[in-house]
């Protein structure tokens, strides 16, 4: 590819020198065209390419026409094997996207994470983690969607559900008892009374009753769900204290988030995921897990089961210190 770029660039050079002044030779426009093509080629790659700046002066009219601006040309092409273009799509689609496997390798080509490689081919389905995602121009207090199908997702342990509402369809993480034909609600109002939420509905934490099991928890309002997304997991809403809510995560750690953060009610689907038995080494290889190093190593203090106290409550709320202290002292 580099050779062709160079050949194209050099081939478009016009060799007419000042001796052709009488004929009035036009400057070579084609040179800049090929330069632009090769720069565009390199723009798509993340690695820098060698840049050869051609110091060719374009021929000019003998009548004193101004010199055309020069541009650099590229003589090498970047590696396209490890390009991440497949995950730079910005427009949402429900169509599955072909996924490139990395094998645990980083941008330099060396293994950064061991034990990853091979496995069945997977296609990535863009899951919308922002449950409170209004359709363009249809903002309201709440909206309903209908579940069209619940299916297996190769990229995660939970199942995903195709929901349709208004004129759009999207993928979301399915909850435990979600089936095709269910109607789920997403609301953003926080009333005085806690809502009696059905499984699969999504409300802000301030609207949910204390003790409800939640999943797909946002920690910053509007950012999208980042916690409690794995199969069978659920968090518990422990307390609501002046504008914030305290949630217990599946690891028993407690976090304090703003009450406007959205969360879905219920447990995540595929509840028996942790009870599955792999059965054979081959099944692990199908999942893309390579065997660990067979070298026997003396284990040090880092190995073995550790029984530690739960770390202190993490607060994702920027409150004035007095209110924050009042919220944390009673944890």
């Amino acid at each position: 590819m580099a050779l062709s770029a160079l050949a194209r660039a050099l081939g478009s050079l016009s060799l007419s020198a000042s001796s052709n002044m009488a004929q009035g030779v036009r400057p070579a426009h084609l040179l800049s065209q090929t330069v632009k093509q090769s720069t565009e080629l390199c723009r798509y790659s993340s690695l820098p390419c060698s840049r050869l700046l051609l110091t060719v002066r374009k021929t000019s009219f003998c009548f004193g026409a101004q010199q055309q601006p020069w541009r650099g040309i590229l003589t090498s092409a970047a590696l396209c094997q490890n390009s991440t273009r497949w995950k730079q799509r910005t427009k949402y689609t429900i169509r599955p996207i072909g996924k490139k496997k990395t094998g645990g390798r980083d941008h330099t080509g060396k293994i950064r994470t061991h034990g990853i490689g091979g496995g069945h081919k997977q296609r990535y389905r863009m899951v919308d983690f922002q449950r409170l995602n209004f359709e363009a121009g249809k903002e309201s207090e709440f909206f309903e969607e209908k579940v069209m199908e619940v299916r297996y997702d190769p990229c995660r342990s939970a199942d995903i559900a195709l929901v349709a509402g208004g004129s759009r369809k999207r993928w979301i993480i399915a909850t435990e008892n979600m089936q095709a034909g269910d109607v789920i609600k997403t609301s953003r109002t926080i009333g005085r009374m806690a809502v009696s939420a059905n499984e699969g509905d999504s409300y802000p934490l301030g609207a949910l009753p204390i003790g409800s099991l939640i999943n797909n928890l946002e920690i910053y309002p509007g950012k999208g769900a980042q916690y409690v997304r794995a199969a069978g997991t659920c968090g518990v809403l422990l307390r609501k204290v002046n504008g914030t809510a305290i949630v217990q995560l599946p690891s028993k750690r407690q976090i304090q988030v703003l009450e406007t953060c959205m969360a879905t009610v219920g447990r995540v689907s595929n509840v028996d995921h942790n009870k599955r038995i792999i059965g054979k080494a081959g099944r692990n290889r199908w999942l893309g897990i390579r065997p660990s190093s067979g070298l026997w190593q003396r284990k040090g203090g880092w190995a073995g089961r550790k029984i530690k106290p739960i770390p202190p409550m993490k607060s994702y709320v920027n409150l004035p210190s007095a209110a924050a202290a009042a919220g944390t002292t009673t944890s």
Partner: protein
Amino acid sequence: MSKVIQHGVRSTEPMLLVVQVGNAARSAFGNYSHSRRCDVSGRRFFSVTCALFGRGPPSRIEKKTVDIPGLERVTYADRMHYVPGLAKPVFPDWRRDWHDPHHYRGPKNEEMKLHKANPCYVFNQRTKILEGVRQALWLTKSKLIQGLPEHILSLAEDPANQIEDQGKRVQQAIRHSCFWDTTAIRPKRDRFCPVLLRDLLHLCGTLQLKHTSLSKSILAENYRVAALWNQESDVFQVRGLIGMLLNIMTPLPEVIQSGEVLATENHTLETFCPISPTIDLQSTYVYDQKNDTGFRDGYPYPHAHTLFFIETEDSAAKFKPEQLRAKMIMFAFGNALARAKSLYGEHPQVLEQPVVVQSIATDGRLFQFIVLQLNTTDLGPDTGVKNLIWMDQDQLLYDYAKCRPLIKKKAVTMAKH
């Protein structure tokens, strides 16, 4: 502790310290040393053979060029090569001075001549609508009746209208398409489906000897239909390149008389909240408002009789029976609406003489039949006279047609079962 020699370090930035971990851990983690994390992008390390730092690809932070009016930026444009310290020159946008079709960027939607303020929802030949027949019924403001109309069924049952040796000849048509067309054991759907349809149409054509009015028809392929209507403040269009259309000189007679047509006013259209009826339709702001039957004025066979749809895809792009029926309804409606608007004008009205269009769709084995009677072009409000659709769905022509060669005593026999 060993210090890594770095190049290109400014005095204000901290030096990195490398902590050597024990050999066992090094082999476990593969030469990955622990270090304090600093911003290491854009550094080159000459004293080590492998990259110990640089967690990710070097981040390309492009420096913002500050334009101070009056101050000229000194660039290396004049020098024609990169000079460290001088600014990067900004060249004007280059445009090719001749039209290259391989590198043509079309105008934006807003600059197009046909750009409109309101979107139009288009149903084309590749649209698979989510709710299927229910959504098509809402879009066409129709009432569904299961089963074909009686007079059509009586026509089919009448032995005078049947072809001689009908059963045998239909079986021969199936065998031709599935077994005799190619030497392959199982021809692909896009091979046997059109052959089967053409054979059956040929059989129907042999009835012309008995009923001469059938000869006043023509089969047209690959024509484009366009129909436009307003419904509940949205603009809808049916556009597409259809498979096959049987055109006739005189219009089809109406199935139901006007008295019963008015009775459809009481029927309410089925909605499917929370899904909107415009789901899966192509939404576009650049569209041409036209109604076109696909044939010019003065065409000797102006009236559409039957639409034929063949479903030949074998993969996930295949139309499922529900989607295929929805497509049949929409295109039959499109043809009927275009015809009605050309006959009676663009103004929305209840038609005195309803327009009837039929449609048949097949995927080689399953057949779907539809008869659509267009009673009204007033599709704006939800109430009023409705159009009527008679549907006969999922009719099997044959259970299976398989052929596998058997080799017995070194002789090949074709076992058909």
